[in-house]
């Protein structure tokens, strides 16, 4: 198993370029003021794409041992569990926070 993949300048610069473009895109979309819930869906989709580019090509997960990718995905899945199961409570209460 080679952990020593050497990226070319081309790959690194292309990924950086894509990240810049996506950033500009997401800011531009913000000014379009899309109706809810599309604004958050588009924003998060773009964010996930950017994060994936960084993880795959800057952090080298594309060429690295599969276990490291699994670690990263596992962390996100467990975070989703924390949020999801908590929201089974918070979204279904009669009164969100105790009145004061």
């Amino acid at each position: 198993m080679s952990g020593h993949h050497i990226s070319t300048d081309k790959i690194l610069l292309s990924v950086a370029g894509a990240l810049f473009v996506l950033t500009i895109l997401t800011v531009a979309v913000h000014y379009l003021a899309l109706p809810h819930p599309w604004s958050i869906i588009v924003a998060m989709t773009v964010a996930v794409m950017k994060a994936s580019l960084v993880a795959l090509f800057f952090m080298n997960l594309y060429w690295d041992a599969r276990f490291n990718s699994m670690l990263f995905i596992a962390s996100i899945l467990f975070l989703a569990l924390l949020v999801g199961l908590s929201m089974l409570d918070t979204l279904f209460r009669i009164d969100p926070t105790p009145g004061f």
Partner: protein
Amino acid sequence: MATAEASSGSTKKLQVRRYKPEERAEKNYLNAEKGIWSWLTTLDHKRIGLLYLAGISLFFAVGGILALLVRMELWTPGPTLGFLTADGYNQLFTLHGAIMIFLFLVPSVPAVLGNFVMPIQIGAKDVAFPRLNLMSWYLYMAGALGTIYVIIAGGIDTGWTFYTPYSSSTGGAVTAMTFGVFIIGFSSILTGVNFITTIHKMRAPGLTWGKLPLFCWGLYATSIIQILATPVLAITLLLVGMERILGIGIFDPALGGDPVLYQHFFWFYSHPAVYIMIVPGFGIVSEVVSTFSKKTVFGYWAIALSSLAIAFIGFLVWGHHMFTSGQASLASTVFSFLTFLVGIPTGIKMFNWLATMHKGSIALKTPLLYVLGFFFLFLIGGLTGIVLATIALDIHLHDTYYVVAHFHFVMVGGMVMALLAGLHYWWPKMFGKMYNETLAKIAAGLILLGFNVTFLPQFVMGAQGMPRRYYNYLEQFTYYHQVSTVGAFILGAGFLLVLGYLVHSLFRGKKAGANPWGSRAMEWQIASPAPPHNFEHTPVVIHGPYDYHRPMEDFQLGLIQSENGHSEHQGAEIASDTDEVKAEE
């Protein structure tokens, strides 16, 4: 020697020979370097394990004394101890809980026995990151010092669970305590990082996942929980600190926050934390049961994978601590159902262990005695957990002594029994000495008797409505409390006896050989006490660690050293997926 076809996994040819261990190593890890500085700067996982042993023993004693004070106060329904006010009592149980959980139970097996045994069991010379290992210990001691400071600086009375808004607004040293626990959390995380990497990367040639000792599987599952859950505790405690210092208001209803949210975050860690505490104990049980039945573990993969299943399902059930908190009933229902599921993998283990013992050649030595106690007590603890998982029952039993009895059965009756089993099992390897078997059996009897006398009455009074964390109580519970207090002192006497003969054995114990129990596991194929670098050769594994049909020589193989100390690579075929190997010597 039997042969098998090599499967599609990678095969290498290795030339091996037998490396018979010395019975006793003149130069071992204990005397390799002298002086206290060599201990405080050691990078040897075995010495670090002993450093942790000193720490957790000390804090177990402190937590135990606090428990005895609590039980003494509860001797009478009204105030009993002249110097103890109700606030003082609150501080006692808070510190008892926090110290026992964070300074004793969470680190105990992984940091002491895991550190000591695991690298040897996988044929490595040390863990992957020895310096991080030492740092883990320093972080543990720093957090422990923080706790001492807290005791001196006015104490905390919030309960070990630090529920908001009380914890975010009360006086006392809450912020210091949360900071101390934050530091200890880092210790736990670094141990997890170390163990996962070590088990993945540093196994001896031939040691496939299917031959990994079950103790290591348990530590692996525990480490996964540690790295996923502990950070959430860290951020939760940080938020409580921020709430106190900046008035952030995320958990405080007066500032617009939600106190139940705190409970979600807290229990997201603290429920998996109980599995951090017990799963290594399960690993010890597997080792002890196999060795003292001289039989291979029944259902190896069932036990290995059930540890992973417990680790996973354990993350899905935290809301069962919150049935009465105002949580939405949808959430409560889902959590209750998922909690029932988590009992299944544990049940699978129990049956497999019993099947292991069936028709085995049983040696009723002290480690096995503690394991038998474990079976009985953990069974009760686990089943009462299922009772508490039932929402309708929990409404009545929540915050009563039923809960207190339940968690003491699983934590003390389960985990501490397993720890004592492991300590007695690996004691000869750690110190090269045997303890007095008769005294050990007497102590085990005292502990098991004392434990039951202390905690069985608590189930009854809990079901009758005795609330937990109460300084005074109704007359009708007096008898139960008094029985419980008597039991606590018997239990304490048992622990003192254990301390006594173990310390005595260090100075006057009979010298132990390499393998006093006749086990096939790798740690018993080296001298006692362990040599400084565990192995001078590279061990090679061709069988699983519980194969009592094979001769001992099969478990003492290693790569042949060439002149310059490097190992040669020719000779035997090792298949990575099958259990059997063709070896040419």
